[in-house]
C-alpha cells in the first residue's frame, strides 16, 4: 500500500471515530457519568419546529422607561421642594423627555434653578419662562443619558424575563437580546404557551395607592394628583366581567420594588388561594407608618394600572408582611407570585412575533423528514449501484461517510437541527454523489480513449477537480448569505448546507479516491467496474 494512501485512510478512519464520539450524546439516551469529564457532551439540538415549543420576539417600549424615570424625578423634586418649604404650583413630566416645574414667583424660581443644577447636573436646564402668569422651567434628559437609560431598560427587562422563565420552569430556554430593543425568547417543549406568554409579557408593576373617597368617580373632574382606575371582578360562576371605577391618589404609597418575597398560600377558612408578600425593611417601615395613619380608610392594590382589590385598613400592620387576595385560581395566584418575585419590567413589552408549534406536529415532522430522507438515500444508492456498478457503490460509501461526518459536525458544534435542515441533508445526499458522477463520467471518457484503469482514474480526478470546486463554492456562497440573514428554520438549513458542502469536498476528493487506490494500486486490475 502506498504511503500516501495509508495516511488518507487513517485520516478518514479518525474522522469516523470522531464523528461517532461526538454523536454519542445525541444517540445514547443515557451516558455514564464519566463521559462528560473528558469526552464531548454537546449534542444536536432539535429546532422548535421539530420538538414543538414557542418562539417569541418582544419589543421593549424603551420610551416608557424614560418616561418612568422622569416621573420619578418629578416625584423626587416634589418631595425635595416640600421639605425645603419651597412653594410650587405644579411639577410634572411633560412630553416624553422633559419635567416642567411651575412656581409662583421669581425668587423661588432662582432657588429652584440652583437646586436642580446641583441635584441633576446631567439634565439640560432651560432658563425660566412665563407660563400663564407663573414662572416655569424645564429640565430635559440629554440624548446620551436617554440612550443609556433605554439600553439599561432592555437589559433589565431581559434579566426579569429570564428570572420569570426560570421560576416558571422551562427546560433549556433561550433568552437573548436582538438588535436595539428586541428580546428573543425560545421555550422548547412548552405545554401551555398562552400562560407562559401572559407571564412573560406582563409588566407586573405593583403599587399601593390610597383611595380618594372624597371624589366621586362619576364627577368628571378629577384633580391633578388623583386618577381614575378600574377594579375588574370576574364572577366565577358566570364568567361575566364587571368594572367598578375608583378614584385613587396618583402617587403610590409603596411600590412593588420594595418586595422581597411573594408566595402562594391557601386560605384555611375558604380554601381560597392568595399571594402572601414580604416587604424589605424600608417597605416594612413605610407600610407600618401608612397603615397606622390610615386605619379605617381604603387603599387600592394596583397591578399594571388595574385595581386588583381595594380593602379597608382594619388595623396597623407592622412586621412587613401582607397578603393579596381575590378571585384567584391556583394557577393565576402562582403566576402572580412569580412575577412579583421576579420584579416588574422596567418598561412594557409588546410581543411582535409568536411562533408556536405543537409537540405532535413536531414529532410528525421528524418522522416524515427521516422517512423522506431514508427513501431519498435508498433511491440514490440503488441508482448509483445500477448505473456505475462497483464504482457506484464506492460513491454510495462516500455519501454515507458524508452523512456520518455531517451529523458528527452538527453535534460537535451543538447545532440546531430544523426541518429545513433535514431537507438540506437529504438534498446533500443527491449533491454528494454529484461530484462522483462528474469524476466517473470523466473516467469513462478516459477509459474510452484506451487508458489503463489507474491512469484513467488519476486523470478523472485531476480533470474533474476544478469543476467540483466551482460548483461547491457557488453553493457555499448562498449558504453563507442565508446563514447571515436567515433566522430559525432557515438558519438551520444554511448550517446543514454549508457544513455538508465542505464535508462533501473532502469525501468526494479524498474518501472515494482512497477506496479506488486500494483496489487499483498494484495495477493488476485490467477492467474497471464503472
Amino acid at each position, binding site marked *: 500500500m502506498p504511503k500516501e494512501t495509508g495516511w488518507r485512510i487513517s485520516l478518514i478512519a479518525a474522522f469516523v471515530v470522531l464523528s461517532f464520539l461526538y454523536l454519542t450524546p445525541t444517540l445514547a439516551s443515557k451516558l455514564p457519568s464519566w463521559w462528560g469529564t473528558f469526552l464531548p457532551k454537546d449534542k444536536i439540538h432539535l429546532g422548535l419546529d421539530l420538538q414543538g415549543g414557542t418562539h417569541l420576539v418582544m419589543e421593549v417600549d424603551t420610551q416608557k422607561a424614560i418616561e418612568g424615570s422622569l416621573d420619578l424625578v418629578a416625584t423626587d423634586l416634589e418631595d425635595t421642594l416640600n421639605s425645603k418649604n419651597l412653594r410650587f404650583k405644579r411639577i410634572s413630566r411633560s412630553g416624553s423627555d422633559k419635567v416642567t416645574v411651575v412656581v409662583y414667583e421669581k425668587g423661588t424660581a432662582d432657588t429652584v434653578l440652583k437646586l436642580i443644577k446641583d441635584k441633576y447636573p446631567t439634565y439640560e436646564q432651560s432658563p425660566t419662562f412665563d407660563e400663564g402668569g407663573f414662572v416655569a422651567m424645564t429640565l430635559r434628559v440629554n440624548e446620551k443619558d436617554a440612550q443609556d437609560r433605554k439600553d439599561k431598560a432592555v437589559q433589565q427587562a431581559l434579566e426579569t424575563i429570564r428570572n420569570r422563565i426560570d421560576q416558571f420552569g422551562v427546560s433549556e430556554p433561550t433568552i437573548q437580546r436582538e438588535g436595539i430593543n428586541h428580546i428573543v425568547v425560545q421555550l422548547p417543549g412548552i405545554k401551555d404557551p398562552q400562560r407562559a406568554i401572559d407571564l412573560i409579557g406582563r409588566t407586573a408593576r405593583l403599587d399601593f395607592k390610597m383611595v380618594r373617597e372624597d371624589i366621586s368617580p362619576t364627577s368628571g373632574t378629577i384633580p391633578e394628583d388623583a386618577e381614575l382606575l378600574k377594579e375588574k371582578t370576574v364572577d366565577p360562576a358566570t364568567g361575566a366581567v364587571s368594572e367598578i371605577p375608583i378614584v385613587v391618589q396618583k402617587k403610590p404609597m409603596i411600590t412593588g420594588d420594595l418586595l422581597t418575597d411573594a408566595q402562594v398560600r391557601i386560605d384555611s377558612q375558604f380554601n381560597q388561594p392568595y399571594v402572601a408578600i414580604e416587604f424589605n425593611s424600608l417597605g416594612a417601615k413605610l407600610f407600618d407608618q401608612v397603615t397606622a395613619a390610615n386605619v379605617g380608610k381604603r387603599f387600592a392594590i394596583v397591578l399594571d394600572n388595574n385595581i386588583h382589590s381595594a380593602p379597608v385598613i382594619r388595623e396597623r400592620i407592622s412586621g412587613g408582611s401582607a397578603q393579596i387576595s381575590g378571585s384567584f385560581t391556583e394557577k393565576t395566584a402562582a403566576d402572580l407570585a412569580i412575577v412579583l418575585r421576579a420584579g416588574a419590567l422596567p418598561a412594557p413589552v409588546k410581543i411582535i412575533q409568536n411562533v408556536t408549534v405543537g409537540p405532535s406536529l413536531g414529532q410528525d415532522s421528524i418522522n416524515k423528514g427521516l422517512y423522506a430522507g431514508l427513501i431519498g438515500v435508498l433511491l440514490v444508492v440503488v441508482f448509483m449501484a445500477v448505473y456505475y456498478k462497483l464504482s457506484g457503490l464506492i460513491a454510495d460509501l462516500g455519501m454515507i461517510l458524508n452523512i456520518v461526518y455531517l451529523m458528527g459536525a452538527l453535534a460537535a458544534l451543538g447545532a440546531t437541527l430544523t426541518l429545513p435542515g433535514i431537507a438540506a441533508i437529504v438534498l446533500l445526499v*443527491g449533491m454528494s454523489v454529484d461530484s462522483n458522477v462528474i469524476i466517473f*463520467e470523466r473516467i469513462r471518457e478516459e477509459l474510452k480513449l484506451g487508458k489503463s484503469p489507474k491512469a484513467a482514474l488519476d486523470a478523472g480526478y485531476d480533470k474533474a477537480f476544478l469543476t467540483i470546486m466551482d460548483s461547491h463554492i457557488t453553493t457555499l456562497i*448562498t449558504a453563507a448569505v442565508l446563514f447571515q*440573514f436567515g433566522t430559525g428554520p432557515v438558519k438551520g438549513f444554511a448550517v446543514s*448546507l454549508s457544513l455538508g458542502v465542505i464535508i462533501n469536498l473532502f469525501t468526494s476528493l479524498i474518501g472515494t479516491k482512497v477506496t479506488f487506490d486500494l483496489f487499483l494500486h498494484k495495477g493488476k486490475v485490467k477492467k474497471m467496474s464503472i
Partner: protein
Amino acid sequence: MELLGKTRIDFIGMRKISFIISAIISIVGIIGVIQVGRGAANMGIDFSGGTAMQLKFNKPISIADARAALHKNGIAKADLQEIKDGNKLLVKMAGAAVGKPSEMVQAAFKKEFADNTFTVDSSTEIGPSIGDKLRKDTLVAAVLSMLGIIMYIAWRFDFKFGVGATLATMHDCLAMFAVFYLMNKEINLLFITAVLTIAGYSLTDTVVVFDRIRENLHKNLKGAMNTIFNDSINEVLSRTIVTSLTVFLAAASLFLFGGEVIHDFSLALLIGVLVGTYSSVFVASPIVVLLENRALGKKVQTA
C-alpha cells in the same frame, strides 16, 4: 450502464425555440416578482405580517362550514385551506395584530363546532414591523448572494461565460417565481431559501458544460463556434442529466414523503433542479455562442 450513447443533438441550433420559451418563462417570472414586490402575490405572513394557524380537528370539517363559523363571529378576512391528511385546517389572516386574532379564531371554532374538538398544531403570529425587517433582510440576502455568485463566475470564467451563467441563473430563479405565481402558491421565507439554494446549485450544471467548452476551445482553435459548443454539450450531456437526476431523486422523496411543512419548499427545489438543467444546456451556452460570434464578427470586420 449508460442512459445515453453518443448523442449528436444540435442544441445551439434550437436556440430560437428555446429563447422564446425562456423569454416567456422569464416574463411571467418578472411579473411574479413585481407582484411579490407590490405585496399582491400570495404572500406568506412572515413577509406580510399576520396570523397563521394550523388546527387539527377530530372529525372532518368542510371549508365552507369553517368560513361560515368565522363569519358569524366577526372574522371576515381569513384565508382557509384544507390539508388532506388528518382533518387539518390552515387559517391565515394577513396584517392583523399579534395576540387577539388567534384567540378569536379558537373561540369561534370552540363555540360553533362544540362536538368537533381541535388542537392547535402550530400558530404563527408576526407583527408588521418584523415583516418589514424580514422583507428588507431577504432582499439584501438575495442581492448579496447573486453578487457573490456573479463575482465568482466573472473571476473563474471570462466575461462572456459570466454573462451566460448569470443570465441562466436569473432565468432559473425567475422560473421558480413564475411557477409559484401561476399556481398561486405562497411566497414565504422557505420559498426564498429554495430560490437562493437553486441559484447556487443550478450553476453546477452550467459549470460542467462551460468547463468542457473551454477545454475544447483550447484544443480546437479553428472549428466553428457552433460545432465546438454542440460537441461539448453532447459530450457532457449524460453527466448533466445524471447529476440532476440524483438531486432530483432526493428532492422528489422530500416532496412526496416530507410532510406538509416542507411540501412547497421541496416543490420549489424540484422545479429549480429541472429548470437549472434545462437552462445550462439551452440558455447559458447559446448566449455565450451569441456573444462569441458577435465578437468574432467584429474582429473580421475590423481586420
